[in-house]
């Protein structure tokens, strides 16, 4: 087996007395698409923040292509090739859609090349018509597409998607699943999602987080049959 693209070793994050992520050993192969599931507060978003340099882990290491990035700056990690689409779209609200995508494409491309990449990306995420509008004035769903366009335009090797299908209509969910599969042809992905229908459409392998640790890792089919997994989700529902 080839060396993993991403690996975490004993990765932990404590906030004061709260242990958000605890001893996580996680491994992702080149070109793999992995789903992360788990109830709210299971540590998925904290895990993503450590992978992208937004949080510095309390213990343990993150290795990207064998390089230790546990204490690297967020911008350096981005330059190495990890992109993230956050749960609440993090975009440049005061700028136009075109300017948003340009900011992503500019770092990699020359002037003319960047312009071409921006046009391509606008078409790919279906925002050519809205190119000159301010992102802050767009609907939530469209802002999600803007952010996805941003991330894709930086041409990362690994993309982290935090709840890409949240708040989307059934039709949009299908479109997103299709796009995720298409992206996976050239890039590795880790997708955090609650929507099991969506997960079934895209993933083979699923990792379940619970209370900061990895509970189980298996195929989609087995995960859906796993009584322990059902318990933590049902338990959450019963509590709600």
């Amino acid at each position, binding site marked *: 087996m080839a060396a993993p693209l991403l690996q975490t070793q004993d990765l932990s994050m404590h906030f004061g007395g709260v242990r958000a992520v605890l001893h996580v050993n996680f491994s992702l192969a080149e070109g793999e698409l992995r789903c992360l599931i788990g109830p709210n507060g299971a540590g998925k978003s904290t895990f993503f923040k450590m992978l992208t340099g937004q949080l510095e882990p309390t213990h343990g290491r993150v290795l990207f292509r064998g390089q230790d990035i546990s204490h690297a700056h967020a*911008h350096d990690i981005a330059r190495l090739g990890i992109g993230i689409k956050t749960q609440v779209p993090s975009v440049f609200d005061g700028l136009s859609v075109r300017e948003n995508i340009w900011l992503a494409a500019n770092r990699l491309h020359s002037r003319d090349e960047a312009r071409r990449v921006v046009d391509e990306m606008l078409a790919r995420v279906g925002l050519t018509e809205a190119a000159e509008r301010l992102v802050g004035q767009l609907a939530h769903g469209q802002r999600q597409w803007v952010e996805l366009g941003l991330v894709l335009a930086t041409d990362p090797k690994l993309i982290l998607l935090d709840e890409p299908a949240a708040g989307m209509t059934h039709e949009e969910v299908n479109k997103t699943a299709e796009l995720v599969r298409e992206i996976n042809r050239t890039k590795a992905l880790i997708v955090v999602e609650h929507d099991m229908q969506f997960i079934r459409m895209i993933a083979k392998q699923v990792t379940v987080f619970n209370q900061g640790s990895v509970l189980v890792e298996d195929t989609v089919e087995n995960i859906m049959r796993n009584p322990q997994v059902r318990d933590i989700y049902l338990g959450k529902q019963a509590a709600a």
Partner: protein
Amino acid sequence: MNARALNLIGLGLVGVIGIAFLVLVPRFFELDVVLEFTVYMIMAILALSLALIWGYGGILCFGQSAFFGLGAYTYAIAMFNIGESTVPLLLAVIVPAAFAALLGYFMFYGRISDVYLGVITLTVTLILFNSINSTAGPEFHIGSARLGGFNGIPGIPPLNVPGNKRAPIDLEGMFYLATAALLATYFGLRLLLASRFGRIIVGIRENERRAELLGYDPRAYKLATFTIGGALAGFAGCLFANWGNFVSPTIFGLAQSAQIIIWVIVGGRGTLIGPIVGCIGIQWLTTALGANQPSGGSDWWAKIFANAPLIFGIILIAFVLLVPKGLVPTLGDIGQSLLASRGKEAKRLQPKRAEEG
């Protein structure tokens, strides 16, 4: 009409008005008015320096006067020691820029958040005020330049034609120089903001975290912006020391620092022309209010109107509450909504005409 065309028309308009101003003012006004306009132009460069840092870089700097004052003092001290103005002029830009770079390095690489940036920059300028203020004794001198403490440094030699110290620039020449410098600064900043660098700093202002996750190091971009702003403020300070042939510690004071912020708020953050308009408007008001000093009468209205800080306070509060975007952006919005409503009407009329035809 698209945004690009409007942009070009705006640029052209500023150019035409600027050049007309440059050519016509000395012909039609007395020297005292020309002198007054000169200081407006110099202060407008100072306003632009904060417009860049705060309006585009998103860095709340309460101490822009620190760089302004350093520029003025550096020029004065270097001039007394050197006697020819080319090197002092350069130093008056380099020293404040280097100081801004050093201060900025600790602030941005130390991850100091927005509000504290304001506190630190304000404190720095007040420290400079107090330090320079207490250098009145003869023992405080740099080379042959006495610092003079609260008395300031009088009789600063004026700029000369580069390389020829026997050809000083006269008062009218200073007007031309200041106005041309303002225009050059304005157009230079427009170019800078249209460049890759400019677009990235605006992106960082909009969403620093996102910019970081795209691979930009916000600290480096902010530091560069802050340094450019410091250099511009220093340059304005050099011209200011020339204008009055005098500099004193009040240049670092709270009143001076607050004024720059008021210019930018009144004129409009996130534009370049706004702070110029705000600066000139407020300065003109200061002069007008100063001219109406009550002559000891009991007319208390006159006394209130002569109290410039009170009037500025009212203006500031009124703008923050009622016109939070500032003058120029608000006028722009009004213009745009007028255009848009006319556009809609035109669209509504078109089908009718088609049917009629």
